[in-house]
């Protein structure tokens, strides 16, 4: 914990600087989009938030599997601390998508597979928090939370692939591993920067939240007393 405590301020400030620089680059130094005009610039918030909201759930699923198989308590603390941050990033993705939708599609909201599945992800995050908080016995709550996270992870590929599987207003992913990016390089570089920066900021928040979770849950242990 000591090493993490020392490392995370550096990661945080580096990520914040990178994110702010990418935002500045994206907002002021890239040209206007031919079709969408200036409204596309919200991509530097929307895409990182959407990417992180799904990635955090996958991280929770891996941590839950580690907890259920190897009984590593730290991994379930991580799951519990990721849940609210995941909910916030999903909310940011939904709101920024909505704001982007108004000038692009002419409406705040459409009952579209990708958008509804992201809303479902948001509700799932809230459901996970409710489930864990409704049990006073933490050991039971940890087990139930891990099982639900693992079962719920079936929704992640559905959210990811919804733009491919269903006819939808939402555009397909602009960046994929296998294909050439559908976005111009001048817009792509700040987008990469914003994704990396946002990921770094969220990672630091997860570290901080996990630290609080460990302190809260292990408060009666002697090592915590000596640490504090």
């Amino acid at each position, binding site marked *: 914990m000591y090493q993490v405590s020392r490392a995370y301020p550096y990661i945080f400030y580096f990520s914040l600087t990178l994110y702010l620089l990418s935002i500045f680059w994206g907002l002021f130094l890239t040209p206007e989009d031919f079709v969408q005009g200036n409204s596309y610039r919200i991509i530097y918030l929307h895409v990182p938030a959407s990417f992180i909201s799904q990635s955090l759930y996958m991280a929770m699923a891996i941590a839950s599997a580690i907890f259920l198989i190897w009984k590593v308590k730290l991994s379930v603390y991580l799951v519990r601390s990721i849940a609210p941050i995941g909910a916030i990033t999903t909310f940011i993705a939904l709101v920024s998508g909505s704001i982007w939708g108004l000038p692009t599609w002419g409406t705040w909201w459409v009952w579209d*597979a990708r958008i509804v*599945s992201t809303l*479902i992800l948001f509700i799932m995050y809230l*459901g*996970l928090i409710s*489930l864990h908080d409704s049990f006073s016995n933490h050991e039971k709550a940890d087990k139930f939370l891990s099982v639900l996270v693992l*079962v*719920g992870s079936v929704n992640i590929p559905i959210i990811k692939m919804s733009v491919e599987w269903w006819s939808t207003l939402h555009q397909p992913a602009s960046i994929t591993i296998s294909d050439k990016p559908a976005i111009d390089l001048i817009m792509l570089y700040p987008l990469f920067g914003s994704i990396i920066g946002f990921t770094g900021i969220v990672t630091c928040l997860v570290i901080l939240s996990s630290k609080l979770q460990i302190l809260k849950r292990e408060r009666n242990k002697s090592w915590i007393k000596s640490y504090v």
Partner: protein
Amino acid sequence: MNIVKLELLKLKSKSRGWLGPILVFILIMVAFPLTIEVSNKELGQSFFSVLWIAILLVMMLATEDIFLEDFNDGSLEQFAISDINLSYLVGAKIFIYWLLIGVPISFLGSVFCMGLTNSIYLASHLFPILLITSYIFINVFSFGNALSLTKGSVLGTLITLPLLLPLLIVLGKAVISINLNLNYLGFVTLLLGVLSIIIFIAPLIISYIIRAHLE
């Protein structure tokens, strides 16, 4: 086999448990046309949305106390320490619930479909989809109610309903395909695939959860 018989007798003796959800389903399906003052054709269009939501609601109500009574009277604890596999008991319970509640509701759903859309073709093709769907719903809600065993069904519904919503998109597409006389077997195969995974995995997960509750 004895466990299946025992569960069948237990549910049959409790008419509130199996007849109640069926009657609630009938009431919803009868009540919804009263709220729309439109031609019969438009009723048929909104029928499917109401049907899926009614089935979701009724399955949720039906499985509300699927494990609660056995948990409260100690039967689940006895089963857990006996030689009988707990996941087998869970599977049997879910099967009986589907047999006494899911099958009649699927049949009634098809009957209402025939009445409201005036299409025997649509109703007859809808029936197998309803059978598969109701079994999936019961499995998933049983999972939710096992998680929130002592905390009420609202929590169980909150955590399991999001898992079922992608399935509703598939059901919507399947109905459109049947309506347009397109090949809908792909959707049925997908539903069967989901069911065949759930039917084996759900009892295992639920028995793990019940054991955790009993600890």
